[in-house]
């Protein structure tokens, strides 16, 4: 296939069908492991990301147990820890920190908390949302054969893989993984557990090394994405004919490119503090345990926070933009309506990308920055809500008047809209420093950003999996199992995160490993939700107290429902690869963007003809057109002969 599918430079004949004999027979290793094909790399990223999402979720389940039932042994822990191989892993990672009776303690809770954040953000959502979908879909949508730098792309994945291994290894070292939150604030992070036989027994070192690799991986990836979008767009694919998906990936790549280096600096300086004993983040006269530390001092913890949040705020948009990207393909496709306000969405996403660099210190109101800085960051923070609202509104309006197909991906997509709305609107009060001073580090904040990321981004990612699965494997995922996945997920997510707002406003702090049991004054409060919980519990014969602590139980039940909800997904995902319903056309959803013009699954080199973008990407229900979709690559209705291309593809397999 190579000659036919590869070149844009050289003129060639559409009719010759040498795509079969051009196949280089690649060994398994080069085809599936050290592959430089963007689709394989995308799937590698995707599967790694899904596994890490599951792992991060498991960490969260342990935490939720401790919050709801502090001091009570983790269920079945004595069975798990004595399993043959899994048990050893469990014991090495978590079991050795458990209390003697099998319950969690604060130390383990802190490790779980820090690693839950790290794993979810850097190893789960970014690889899945940006790297996996971006790698698989973006080159197809702009009609090219591969990324601009395929070998760098492979390197990117393998750097990421190394960083995964290092991060996992940090569970097994002497001090255990880091305990200081995913934010890794100095000086606590730099001075914690100073007493070690050698620095390599310290989880913090491994965390930092893993982050350095992770950052290098995203750097390579983002350079690749931007160069590809700029230079490899196919004929006719003008900037404003590009699907919004690619625009969002373009902006995301810029965020990664320019925001990650300061985090790399932060990590390098912290590494230096730890390994060489420097004092970048350690103020003069820092004491620990009543003892003067053997440091020169002169540094500032504020420096760390600035460098960290300069990354971590754009990172929030790195988490959410791929979600928007996915939805802009799924919603028009399943509403059979063009995307409403494509241009305003493009300008919004560009504005959003730029503004996201100017708001970082709204995470730092409590550090005692000056009044001017606070004012400045309040203004920019409120400003940035405007483009976000534009994006969400456009997606909502796109539904208006559509004939909506409620398949699984559309269910997830339509659930995203209100969920993200809740997350976004609850964030507005936090933009103001006077409210934030009270809310800082309470469950209100946790509820806010989890609504954005969990039922927001993760729902969009699920939708993406269901949407592009047929293109990746040639088979559908089961719709019934999909619905069985969706409804428990939706209910579970809301049961977990909605009560957080109530608890947060009651003053519950995010780092209480006992869920507030120790703080009777706060937790004894009653609220109509707690009364309701009490009554429902009483109806089923449980004695749930009528106070804020009862919400912990609600949330943990929610987490349990959420966990059960993922079982159908896992089954569906693995069984559909070989056993799902086969697709009958290369464009099963009758979509308009170019990834559906390729054979299924797309071969090395992607296209069987030279794709040309004749029109915008969202031409659904065009008046006067025979079908309700008018793909980008069709020059005239029905030309090039799609059927012939599809038959060719079938013959190819």
């Amino acid at each position: 296939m190579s000659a036919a599918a590869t070149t844009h430079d050289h003129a060639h004949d559409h009719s010759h069908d040498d795509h079969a004999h051009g196949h280089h027979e690649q060994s398994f290793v080069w085809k599936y492991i050290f592959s430089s094909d963007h689709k394989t790399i995308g799937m590698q990223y995707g599967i790694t990301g899904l596994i890490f999402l599951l792992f991060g979720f498991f960490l969260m389940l342990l935490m939720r147990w401790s919050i709801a039932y502090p001091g009570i042994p983790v269920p079945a822990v004595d069975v798990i820890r004595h399993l043959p191989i899994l048990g050893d892993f469990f014991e090495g990672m978590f079991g050795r920190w458990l209390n003697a009776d099998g319950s969690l303690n604060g130390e383990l809770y802190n490790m779980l908390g820090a690693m839950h954040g790290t794993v979810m953000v850097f190893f789960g959502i970014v690889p899945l949302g940006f790297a996996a979908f971006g790698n698989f879909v973006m080159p197809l949508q702009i009609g090219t054969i591969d990324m601009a730098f395929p070998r760098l792309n492979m390197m990117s994945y393998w750097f990421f893989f190394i960083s995964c291994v290092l991060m996992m290894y940090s569970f097994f070292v002497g001090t255990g993984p880091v305990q200081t939150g995913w934010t890794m604030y100095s000086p606590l992070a730099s001075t914690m557990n100073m007493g070690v036989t050698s620095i390599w027994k310290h989880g913090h070192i491994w965390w930092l090394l893993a982050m350095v690799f992770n950052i290098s991986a995203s750097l390579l990836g983002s350079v690749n994405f931007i160069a590809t979008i700029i230079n490899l767009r196919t004929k006719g694919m003008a900037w404003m004919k590009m699907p919004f998906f690619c625009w969002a990936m373009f902006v995301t790549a810029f965020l990664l490119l320019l925001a990650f280096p300061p985090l790399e600096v932060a990590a390098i300086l912290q590494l230096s503090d730890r390994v060489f004993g420097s004092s970048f983040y350690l103020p003069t006269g820092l004491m620990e345990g009543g003892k003067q530390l053997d440091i020169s001092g002169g540094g500032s913890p504020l420096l760390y926070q600035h460098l960290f949040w300069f990354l971590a705020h754009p990172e929030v948009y790195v988490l959410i933009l791929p979600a928007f990207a996915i939805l802009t393909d799924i919603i028009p496709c399943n509403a059979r309506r063009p995307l409403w306000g494509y241009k305003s969405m493009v300008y919004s996403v560009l504005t959003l990308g730029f503004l996201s660099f100017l708001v970082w210190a709204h995470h730092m109101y409590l550090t005692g920055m000056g009044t001017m800085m606070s004012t400045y960051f309040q203004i920019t923070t409120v400003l940035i809500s405007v483009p976000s609202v534009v994006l969400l509104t456009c997606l909502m309006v796109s539904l208006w008047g559509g004939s909506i197909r409620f398949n699984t991906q559309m269910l997830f997509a339509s659930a995203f809209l209100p969920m993200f709305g809740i997350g976004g609107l609850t964030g507005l009060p936090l933009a103001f420093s006077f409210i934030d001073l009270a809310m800082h580090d309470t469950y209100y904040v946790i509820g806010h950003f989890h609504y954005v990321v969990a039922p927001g981004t993760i729902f969009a990612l699920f939708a993406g999996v269901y949407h592009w699965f047929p293109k990746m494997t040639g088979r559908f995922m089961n719709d019934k199992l999909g619905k069985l996945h969706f409804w428990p997920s939706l209910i579970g997510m809301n049961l977990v995160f909605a009560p957080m707002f109530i608890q947060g406003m009651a003053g519950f702090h995010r780092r209480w490993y006992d869920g507030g049991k120790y703080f009777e004054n706060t937790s004894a409060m009653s609220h109509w939700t707690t009364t309701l919980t009490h009554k429902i519990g009483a109806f089923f014969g449980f004695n749930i107290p009528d106070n804020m602590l009862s919400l912990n139980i609600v949330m943990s039940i929610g987490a349990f429902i959420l966990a059960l909800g993922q079982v159908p997904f896992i089954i569906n995902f693995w069984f559909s690869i070989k056993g799902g319903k086969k697709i009958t056309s290369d464009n099963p959803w009758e979509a308009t963007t170019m990834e559906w013009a390729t054979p299924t699954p797309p071969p090395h080199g992607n296209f069987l003809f030279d794709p040309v973008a004749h029109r915008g990407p969202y031409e659904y229900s065009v008046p006067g057109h025979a079908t309700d979709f008018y793909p980008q690559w069709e020059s005239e209705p029905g030309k090039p002969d799609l059927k012939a291309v599809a038959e060719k593809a079938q013959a190819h397999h």
Partner: protein
Amino acid sequence: MADNVEAIQKSIKWYLIIGGILILASGATVWLSFVELPTHSLNILVGMILATIKATLVALIFMHLNHERSLIYKILLFTVVLAVVLFALFIFSHEDPLVFPGFYAPVEQQ
């Protein structure tokens, strides 16, 4: 871009001249740093202005930014704006003009 042969031949002379200027400017920077200006901040300012001029020369001539495509300019402009934001806000967070005396520490006794 200087792709044709004549343009490149012409620019070779300029590369050498600019190299010489850069070395001279470095010498000047060293000398100026030993001159006791009224305040040390002034020394820093002068040194940084010289360094910026040198850096601009390198970027324009050696890195061919004097005749580059607009796309590259856009990328770099965006980056430079963000880098400036990084510098400026770091400084402001240290020396916030709206902080009144005594905000952090008691006012010094006169």
